[in-house]
């Protein structure tokens, strides 16, 4: 369904004052590390923004991303923006179902060909020709390829869509792949996280709606504004790391004092996300603050990164077995070398020709 109301008109209709709207734009600008001078540009564009068509494809996913984005107890400007976009296809949110839903998708694609925004959550299985996940008899793989063709840009929401996520974890029985693995001719923004932070999504959309371009991305395709810093650098518990004060178990003195969770497996240092600053549940808390180490959920292959409770500095293999095995091999090779050495030395000793005083002159 679409109408021609601009976002500005819609917000005013909903009772959002100009001031409230500008505050949102200022927050958005600062979250994306844009200078204050951009606030009015954001405000202008957003105000005039028409309703872009958004097709949301959910593939091999748990719906957690949608839950995160849409769960709000009070209406927020983010959710209103969300309302503003013409969400023409979304399994969880759309009213239609079955053929009607697929027909709606086809219509939206035809009418907005080349201009609609494709949002994907969930990984795409390719094993067995994609049979592991189908919608209306169409494999995820085929649907992605079809819809991506007419998309202006693709937003891969959640770690599954961005990097393969949980299904992609060892041994990856469904052959799960990310959007970027399969679509190479369209601009893709990865918004990873398991799930991603709501404000991150709205920030990305706001950017797109405002500037009609993708925000600056890092080499993993993530907006630098939200994924440019690692958790460790913004973590409020960093001073404890510096002082070498670590919690050793989840309920020891250190844990109770809120010490660094490095030893309990926190992947903060290698994780790039906005959790430490933007936090979750509208700024209530985030994993570390709640006493659990970061699991690195916005990073590729975080499920196979050696375990959530093993510190980054600890090798993930079985060191004792390795040592035992290598020791056994070492003893075997050593024994062989020893035999050779003894033999060579014995040979030299056996070949010893006694030196007399007549054997000293080389002439």
């Amino acid at each position: 369904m679409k109408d021609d109301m601009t976002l500005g008109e819609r917000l005013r209709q909903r009772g959002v004052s100009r001031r409230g709207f500008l505050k949102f734009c200022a927050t958005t600008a600062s979250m994306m590390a844009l200078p204050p001078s951009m606030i009015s540009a954001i405000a202008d564009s957003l105000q005039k923004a028409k309703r872009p068509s958004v097709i949301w494809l959910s593939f091999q996913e748990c719906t957690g991303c949608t839950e995160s984005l849409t769960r709000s107890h009070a209406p927020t400007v983010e959710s209103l923006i969300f309302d503003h976009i013409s969400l023409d296809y979304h399994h969880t949110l759309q009213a239609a179902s079955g053929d009607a839903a697929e027909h709606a998708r086809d219509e939206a694609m035809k009418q907005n060909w080349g201009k609609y925004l494709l949002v994907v959550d969930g990984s795409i299985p390719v094993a067995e020709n994609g049979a592991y996940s189908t919608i209306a008899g169409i494999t995820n793989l085929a649907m992605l390829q079809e819809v991506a063709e007419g998309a202006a840009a693709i937003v891969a929401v959640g770690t599954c869509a961005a990097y393969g996520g949980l299904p992609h974890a060892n041994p990856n029985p469904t052959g799960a792949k990310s959007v970027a693995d399969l679509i190479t001719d369209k601009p893709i923004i990865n918004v990873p996280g398991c799930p991603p932070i709501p404000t991150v999504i709205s920030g990305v959309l706001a950017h797109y709606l405002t500037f009609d371009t993708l925000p600056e991305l890092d080499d993993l395709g993530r907006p630098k504004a939200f994924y440019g810093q690692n958790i460790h650098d913004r973590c409020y518990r960093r001073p404890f790391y510096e002082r070498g004060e670590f919690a050793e178990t989840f309920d020891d003195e250190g844990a109770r004092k809120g010490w660094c969770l490095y030893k309990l497996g926190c992947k903060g240092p290698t994780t790039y996300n906005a959790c430490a600053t933007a936090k979750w549940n509208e700024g209530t808390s985030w994993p570390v603050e709640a006493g659990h180490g970061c699991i690195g959920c916005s990073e590729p292959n975080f499920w196979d990164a050696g375990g959530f409770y093993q510190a980054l500095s600890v090798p993930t293999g079985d060191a004792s077995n390795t040592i035992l095995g290598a020791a056994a091999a070492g003893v075997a090779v050593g024994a062989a070398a020893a035999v050779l050495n003894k033999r060579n030395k014995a040979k030299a000793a056996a070949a010893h020709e006694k030196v007399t005083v007549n054997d000293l002159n080389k002439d």
Partner: protein
Amino acid sequence: MSAPSVEKGIQFIREQIDAPVASFFSSCVHCGLCAEACLFYGQTGEAKYTPINKVEPMRRIWEQEYTLWGKIKSSLGLSRKVTEKDFEEWETLVYDACSLCGRCSLICPVGNDISDMIRKIREGFAAAGYAPEGLIGASKRAVEIGSPMGVKLPAVKAQIAHLKKDTGLDAPLDLKGADYMVLLSSMEIMNFPEYLEAVARIMRQAGKTWTISSKAFEATNAGIQIGVSDIAAELVQRVVDAAEELGVNTVISPECGHAFTAIRWEGPNLIGRPFKFKVQHILEVLDDFRAEGLLKTEGLEEAKLTFHDPCQLVRKGGVVQQPRNLLNMVASNFVEMRDHGAMNWCCSAGGGVSANERADEVKFKAFNQKKSQLDELGVDTLVTACANCRIMLEEGIEEHEMDLPVVGLTEMIADHLVEERVEDKAEDKNE
């Protein structure tokens, strides 16, 4: 019996490499501190005299033949085999610029016994025909004549006769069951006859029986210096056979450095079995006498004097305190060199260097180390307990026109012996 050859030399080195040597090469971190302990490097500034560098050919043989990694490198053509050229180049490093003084071994932070490795590598060099002329000659004379300086029994007998004439004392030959069998170095027989007299007088005062073997009076061991265990063993065997035949209690090694090493430490290992007698250095014997109250002296040397510690006796022999105990009996102004005792500096002529004319130049350069020690102290007399050191010290002192007499410790002790006992005086009168 076979002709010397490079292949034979390499074979000998292979044979010499044992677990200690392998651990030394495995541990060497190339810190270069051994050079700082070496007087030959110190006084010439020649980096090639760095002690661990002197055994580089042995290290290459060890790596290439006794380590898997070395064998792999060899098969990939990444290592240089030891060749005749290495023997040519290293001969002077192994013989001329090393007196086997052992200071490098004491310094090494990882505990490498570098001087022992140099002793071992000499086995290969000698077998390859790359030993110095002087040492080859000394060895020949030692084996064929009985002394490296060609001293024969008649010369010994002549000294014994002199002794009788000058002091009325006997030096019994081949006395069975004597407490002590005395060995003499050719140097002492030829140049320092006062040693024999000193021993005789001290033995008389202490009331001990002693003897000299007519078959094995020579203490020095050219085999040790040239680094040929086969020859060294033959020379030691002579002493062992004589001592065991006579059934003596203790064999005394005289004031000589390497002779002590030869008979006390290498001896049993060369012949492959423990001795049936004890071995002591003359200073150990004298100190025992002192401790037992058998050594009565009087008077004190007034001159400011110091002690040069012979390397083989003190650092490598462990006879550190004894010379000091003895000197304190007869000296009123005994001062120590700054580096004294086990850390003293070599006279620069040990380990065969003095028998090697080719080494003269580097030897005298190295002597500057001893000179600087003496200059710092400013003494009137230099005491030592090794005839070879004594010769070198005298030569060096003369070279630098220093006015400094060198005295043997045993001789000095004897000079201060209390007057002979009444019975002996009467005996003398009766002659």
